[in-house]
């Protein structure tokens, strides 16, 4: 018997309309755990590196994590994996909600799509009955609307539906996949779904999920819940409210936005408004929030309340989470009421709440600079807020200027020319990032931004505080019950970390310490993304209930896989290295590994080089960021090592990089 996982994937050939239920190899679970790990393995094995994201050969993989659907709190993430049309690298974007556990109960760990459907379809998975159904009547419908229509037409209100809106159908590069209160938004995976002609996947399951050693497993789950209770009652002192608790930043619960509105950038990630927040704004925004937020909601089997039901009078209800509350507001220099209103339309269209507002602000900036002309913007209203609606409508329909902007700021700037490139200033690897501009380089964040395979500033953070505590008393207080550290040395790093002087950014944490901190943080993320456990209860917040010390037993008692801390660390390293290998094979090199140029005002080129050198070495990669043969073999990734030699990515077994590698693959 397979435990925690079902042991079966669904293989859907869209061109032929063929559906197969395929048993998976339990050894792959032992090596890659599941979720992102096993999906990366499938992508590596089956999709050649030269495959265009919109080629029928590209795969679109919807995956549960290893522990999804078990009683482990917060094990509900759906991990979607494919090649991104925007970065041309591997994309993995994730969503919470209720979809992944339902898929497990239907009897599958993953749904793997290949080919393209000749017409718009949706997939209906009802336990053993799986069918591809016509979706022509859903064409152009909103993502939320589509989910409701499908549930009605199937007469199954308990079905969970993941759907794309107009943006996905039109292959907009920031198209998301929406589901319940959640969405997989980043890197254009909704565009790949639309390209394949899939409007939605509805799933309903009523089968059991089995646990290997039940008593031990449930005991751990109870401990996790107890710890969540403790953390709810005892927020971390000395940090801003959104970092004090668990879950994703509690944007739906809190209304005090002083920190975000005065520290994050407005417009096209340009302007800091230091005295923005005042009593009047606070009163008005609080009203907007309280009048529209009907209920705080969670994902499957999680006590947190990171999302909310939003009902703006006169427009249909939708669900929101996290920071999309402010992205539209701040891009348009507007207010929260506008933010709630436009986000409703954006959610129905199915677009990424980070990239989209920035793309629109970018377009308007180009217009103000005279790079885009009245002719380009023909028909644009004069009112500022109306312009955002107008641009959103154009982008998702790929009409006029919208067709260019729909590819995101990087590709749009390439197409527009005339100096537009300067305005696409907030990207990493061609992908729009959080509108954050800071002063002093932070070495830990430099490494995470530059080398993170997720290509996303958000959600790569972890359990090491973002800034030092002011007093020794606060530091000592913080470390005294810091049970999550993999090694006691991290406590000392924090104790010694100062705001000013020798032990402060950018030279402290030291290069070596920075590598260790990043290694810890990303290891936890790779574990979460394989298990399907929400980062909000694990790798994202300070002092989370899941950590390296309780995960091994959770995995072994839940899934029946022998696991200890060293083994788990190794599995996470294997997954991290494999994802890197996929991107290396797609052409990613050291030259691509950099934060947005203006992310920090104070930059230290020599230190940054040293950070990259040391980090690569620490990871067992060569100086171009390519995993060495030795590293790959140690992880059992011998086939990757051989492939690198065969493709002349490395010249020989000595891992000397080839000379003729062009950094960053460009599209014609």
């Amino acid at each position, binding site marked *: 018997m397979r435990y925690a996982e079902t042991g079966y994937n669904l293989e859907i050939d869209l061109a032929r309309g063929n559906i197969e239920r395929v048993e998976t190899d339990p050894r792959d679970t032992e090596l890659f755990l599941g979720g992102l790990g096993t999906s990366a393995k499938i992508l590596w094995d089956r999709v050649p590196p030269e495959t265009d994201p919109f080629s029928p050969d590209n795969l679109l993989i919807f995956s549960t994590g290893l522990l999804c659907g078990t*009683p482990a709190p917060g094990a509900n993430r759906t991990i979607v994996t494919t090649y991104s049309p925007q970065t041309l690298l591997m994309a993995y974007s994730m969503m919470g909600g209720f979809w992944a556990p339902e898929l497990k109960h239907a009897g599958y760990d993953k749904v793997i799509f290949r080919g393209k459907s000749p017409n718009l379809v949706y997939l209906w998975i009802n336990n053993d009955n799986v069918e591809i159904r016509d979706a022509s009547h859903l064409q152009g419908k909103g993502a939320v609307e589509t989910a409701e229509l499908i549930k009605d037409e199937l007469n199954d209100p308990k079905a969970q539906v993941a759907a794309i809106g107009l943006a996905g159908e039109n292959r907009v590069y920031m198209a998301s996949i929406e589901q319940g209160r959640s969405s997989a938004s980043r890197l254009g995976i909704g565009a790949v779904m639309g390209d394949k002609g899939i409007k939605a996947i509805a799933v309903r399951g009523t089968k059991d999920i*089995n*646990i290997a050693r*039940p*008593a031990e497993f449930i005991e751990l789950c109870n401990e996790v819940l107890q710890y969540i209770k403790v953390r709810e009652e005892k927020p971390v002192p000395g940090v801003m409210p959104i970092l004090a608790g668990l879950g994703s930043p509690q944007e739906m619960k809190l209304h005090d936005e002083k920190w975000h509105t005065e520290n994050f950038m407005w417009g096209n990630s340009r302007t800091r408004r230091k005295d923005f927040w005042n009593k009047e704004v606070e009163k008005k925004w609080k009203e907007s929030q309280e009048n529209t937020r009907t209920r705080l*909601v969670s*994902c499957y089997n999680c006590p947190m*309340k990171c999302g909310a039901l939003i009902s703006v009078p006169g427009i249909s*209800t939708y669900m929101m989470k996290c920071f999309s509350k402010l992205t539209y507001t701040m891009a348009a220099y507007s207010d929260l009421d506008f933010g709630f209103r436009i986000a409703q339309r954006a959610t129905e269209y199915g677009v990424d709440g980070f990239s989209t507002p920035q793309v629109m602000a970018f377009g308007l900036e180009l217009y103000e600079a005279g790079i885009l002309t009245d002719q380009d913007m023909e028909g644009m209203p004069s009112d500022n807020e109306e312009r955002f609606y107008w641009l959103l409508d154009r982008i998702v329909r790929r009409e006029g200027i919208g067709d260019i902007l729909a590819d995101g700021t990087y590709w749009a700037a390439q197409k527009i020319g005339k100096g537009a490139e300067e305005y696409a200033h907030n990207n990493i690897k061609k992908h729009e990032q959080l509108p954050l501009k800071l002063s002093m380089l932070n070495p830990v964040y430099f490494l995470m931004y530059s080398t993170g395979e997720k290509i996303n500033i958000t959600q790569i953070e972890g359990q090491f505080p973002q800034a030092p505590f002011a007093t020794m008393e606060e530091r000592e207080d913080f470390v005294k019950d810091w049970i999550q550290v993999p090694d006691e040395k991290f406590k000392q790093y924090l104790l010694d970390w100062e705001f000013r002087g020798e032990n402060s950014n950018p030279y402290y944490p030291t290069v070596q310490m920075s590598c260790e901190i990043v290694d810890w943080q990303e290891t936890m993320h790779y574990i979460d993304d394989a298990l399907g456990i929400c980062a909000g209860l694990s790798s994202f917040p300070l002092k989370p209930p899941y950590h390296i010390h309780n995960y091994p037993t959770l995995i072994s008692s839940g899934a029946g896989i022998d696991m200890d801390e060293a083994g788990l660390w190794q599995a996470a390293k294997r997954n991290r290295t494999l994802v890197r290998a996929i991107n290396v094979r797609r052409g990613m090199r050291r030259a691509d590994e950099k934060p947005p140029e203006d992310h920090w005002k104070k930059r230290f080129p020599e230190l940054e080089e040293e950070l990259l050198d040391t980090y690569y070495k620490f990871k067992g990669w060569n100086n171009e960021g390519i995993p060495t043969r030795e590293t790959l073999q140690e992880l059992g990734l011998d086939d990757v090592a051989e492939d690198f030699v065969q493709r002349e990515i490395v010249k020989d077994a000595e891992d000397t990089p080839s000379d003729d590698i062009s950094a960053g693959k460009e599209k014609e």
Partner: protein
Amino acid sequence: MTEEKTKKIIKTIKVDVDKCNGCRACEVICSAFHATPEYSSNNPARSRIRVIRDPLKDIYIPVYAGEYTPAECMGRDKYTIDGKEYDECAFCRASCPSRDIFKEPDSGLPLKCDMCESDPPLDEPLCVQWCLNDALTYEEREEDVEEEVEQEELEIGLEALADKFGLDKIMDTVARMSMKD
């Protein structure tokens, strides 16, 4: 016949729908607890508590499985509260032919909440323990059961039957029924 008052423990799960975040942890832990062996599997479809959800309409009602009923009611009810229209029979706890909840998904056998009866007994049913948002809270109280009243009711009932069928027939029937046992 005794006229003494007897004590009965009333177990109540108080449901505050306003506090429900819709996470369904109650369904998860209920189905895990009632698996054989305990916690060896889980499956909300087997749960004895279901969250009746219509997220976009802000409808989140945890409902417990009550008695099995072989026949559905003569008619159905449909509530609208504070402008929210609830499903037909939304608040009913019966495992009933009219709907698919509170039935084993494979056999169709009815499910019924047993308040997590176990030995040794738990402090609280597990759905309550796993609801960190306090949408579910547990209360136990003792109530005096007045046997007298029941006796009175029984006599009234029997008198009515005797009027209809005659006392002899009633006694025959009672005798026959007790032999069956």
